[in-house]
């Protein structure tokens, strides 16, 4: 057998012990890896009702059988845990080099349990696994932490995944950063790591990832790579413009959320889109994650005088160096949603989020909510230490920095937009689902995205059912609700089974699908996977996550959208007058999922999926 290494690491921080266990191969076959396998272990080992920030929560780092191979975009690992932001199961994905390095060290997963009595980090060099003191790293940024661990260990090739000051301070949307700019970003997985007093996991691996049928595997990866090279998105579009290429078309249909989702178009879009980043000279080059043949990463530099204009106290030495970002999501959340058209402010806020270890989507949307509270006179300049106006780059940067260090009003923003708006008496200003802030697509102008957000198991997310692909770039009517339930289910199952579980990046899906992934998985593992089986595995994963959430206390009532999306029509632009008609789609969605009217999987469905 190949693909999997067949071993997992179990780390008990309370007892300060480390164990190597054999991988449960039956589960691996039925859930593949990554998101699926991580969820299987979490579901089996943990009561979903535990407090996400208590030592009872487990934090799982899971790779897939294609992680560390030459399959294009086989770079990914998933962080699976109960999210600090949502209280739901989360599966937060990251690229870079960390996942492959863990495989090279000889492990498919790391399961972290308990809580260390004081700051610790985990050191893995092949068979050498140690829990080391991280006292001297506490309070350091993620970038400093990576450098310090490499220096003190004398292993320059060690790859580090760490939390920053935000994770240490339990900012609810803190993330885990590896390779400086790659993030397991969403749902507060960094806060869970911080609650365990675990600063970092550093890995160096010198072994190989073997394959069951090497020759067939190379053929399969080459076929998929050739297809990706020919596709306009994966072959050239994303390399040239990055995901930022999405901003203009989404703005054109009036679905670019602006001013905390009050509007669907942003005036400043010309100043912050893909073209502008290139023209202004801030874009230096593009960069790939491990094994990626797309290379969508944006390598950028602050060049517009931002360093002089804005006051930042964190790691100032870095402001002159190249760094990465922004992706479309960050340029939107830190830009359009806050009404900010200054690229330097967006870049600096993006770098700061990476250094402090915070999800820029949730950060931007939370700042936007705070700005609306300020607009309404609920928050004052005195409270915030600055005029928290929409459009103010200075205000954005101050909020980001204050949130990461939990200073002043930042301590309130650190709780995320749902808790922030509730605390100040305006819960209707929270733009998100299940506690997690929306990404960059207004569901009023894109009906399918609304259903995807409402039913995503980790709260609002664009990566679980990207219906915008069909609604903006494909042939589906974005304003209709017909067929959106079917599309959402199909995308959810396809994504879970073929990319999220196997170790691939979901961005491959413009060019390749399950029929390309199957030969790779089959040749890697030696198991005769089929397309039907992969889709069924995807469905199984989605249902298992759903069961976790039901046990954690979620109900059908949580499969909803904020009132603004359901009842306040988009005021102007091509989506003017529209709201999201979730009620037309949700019952149909439950029905084709084989769930009852309360959104619970029926016993027959569970039996069919082997989850009974």
């Amino acid at each position: 057998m190949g693909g999997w290494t067949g071993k997992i690491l179990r780390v008990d921080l309370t007892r300060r012990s480390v164990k190597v266990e054999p991988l449960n191969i039956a589960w691996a076959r039925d859930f593949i890896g990554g998101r699926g396998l991580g969820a299987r272990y979490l579901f089996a080992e943990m009561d979903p009702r535990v407090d996400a920030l208590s030592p009872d929560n487990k934090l799982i780092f899971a790779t897939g059988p294609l992680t560390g191979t030459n399959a294009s975009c086989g770079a990914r690992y998933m962080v699976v845990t109960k999210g600090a932001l949502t209280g739901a199961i989360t599966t937060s994905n990251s690229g870079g080099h960390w996942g492959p390095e863990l495989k090279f060290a000889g492990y498919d997963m790391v399961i972290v349990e308990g809580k260390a009595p004081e700051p610790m980090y985990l050191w893995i060099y092949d068979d050498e696994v140690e829990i080391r003191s991280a006292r001297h790293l506490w309070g350091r940024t993620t970038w400093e932490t990576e450098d310090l661990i490499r220096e003190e260990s004398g292993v320059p090739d060690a790859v580090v995944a760490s939390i920053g000051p935000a994770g240490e301070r339990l900012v609810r949307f803190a993330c885990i950063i590896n390779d400086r700019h790659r993030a397991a970003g969403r749902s507060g997985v960094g806060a869970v790591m911080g609650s365990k007093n675990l600063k970092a996991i550093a890995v160096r691996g010198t072994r190989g990832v073997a394959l069951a049928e090497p020759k067939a595997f190379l053929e399969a990866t080459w076929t998929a790579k050739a297809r990706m090279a020919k596709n306009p998105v994966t072959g050239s579009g994303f390399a040239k413009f990055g995901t930022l290429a999405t901003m203009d078309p989404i703005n054109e249909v009036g679905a670019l959320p602006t001013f905390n989702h009050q509007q669907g178009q942003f005036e400043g879009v010309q100043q912050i889109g893909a073209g502008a980043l290139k023209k202004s000279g801030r874009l230096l080059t593009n960069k790939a994650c491990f094994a990626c043949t797309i290379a969508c990463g944006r390598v950028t530099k602050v060049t517009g005088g931002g360093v002089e204009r804005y006051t930042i106290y964190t790691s100032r030495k870095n402001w002159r160096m190249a760094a990465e970002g922004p992706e479309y999501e960050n340029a939107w959340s830190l830009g359009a949603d806050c009404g900010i058209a200054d690229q330097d402010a967006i870049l600096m806020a993006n770098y700061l989020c990476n250094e402090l270890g915070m999800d820029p989507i949730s950060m931007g949307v939370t700042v936007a909510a705070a700005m609306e509270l300020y607009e309404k006179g609920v928050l004052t300049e005195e409270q915030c230490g600055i005029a928290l106006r929409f459009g103010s780059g200075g205000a954005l940067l101050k909020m980001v920095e204050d949130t990461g260090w939990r200073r002043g009003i930042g301590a309130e923003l650190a709780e995320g937009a749902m808790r922030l708006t509730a605390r100040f008496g305006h819960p209707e200003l929270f733009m998100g689902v299940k506690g997690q802030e929306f990404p960059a697509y207004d569901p009023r102008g894109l009906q399918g995205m609304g259903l995807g957000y409402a039913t995503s198991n980790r709260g609002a997310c664009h990566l679980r059912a990207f219906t915008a692909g069909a609604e903006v770039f494909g042939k589906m009517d974005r304003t209709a609700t017909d067929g959106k339930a079917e599309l959402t289910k199909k995308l959810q199952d396809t994504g879970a089974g073929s990319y999220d579980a196997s170790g691939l990046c979901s961005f491959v899906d413009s060019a390749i699908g399950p029929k390309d992934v199957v030969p790779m998985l089959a040749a890697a593992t030696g198991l005769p996977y089929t397309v039907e089986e992969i889709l069924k595995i995807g469905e199984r994963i989605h249902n298992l996550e759903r069961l976790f959430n039901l046990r954690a206390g979620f109900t059908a009532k949580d499969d909803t959208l904020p009132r603004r999306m359901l009842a306040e029509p988009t005021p102007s632009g091509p989506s003017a007058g529209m709201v999201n008609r979730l009620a037309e789609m949700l019952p149909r969605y439950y029905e084709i999922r084989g769930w009852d009217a309360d959104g619970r999987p029926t016993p027959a469905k569970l039996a069919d999926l082997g989850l009974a």
Partner: protein
Amino acid sequence: MAHRMLRIVPEKCTGCMQCELACSFVQTGAFQPSRSVIRVHLFDEQASYAPYTCFQCREAWCMTACPVNAIAVNLATGAKVVLEQTCVGCALCTIACPFGTMFYNPDTKKAFKCNLCEGDPACARACPTAAIVYEAAAPDWMTPWADKVHSRYLEAVSSSS
């Protein structure tokens, strides 16, 4: 003696490691970058990425250093190759190489290096951006001199074998 060589175009490199993966697969039959003889360096703060591997120096220090003549020239490709049977694993070549492109395998206890894959380098094939091209090198000021040394050497080996 116009052998082709691996030309590196750093501006095109995205740091994707496909070259290391392909190389390690040739060496081991698995994906194991620690056994790749081409190594990619990511200079993140300078926004620059580049692979490097053996230049197949015309006057090769590894050959000069080897006490048992375990490094030979492949006459077809010009590659300097390690003769596994002869290599005694003393690792002198890894010290002699000024570019760090001679490696030591602790499992086999032998030296190993780039052999240009017998004239079809896997790294160049795998690179998605053509940042590695296998082609005739453009002559520079050192070339005529190095060619002379090189052909003298080749004559010596071919007449002795």
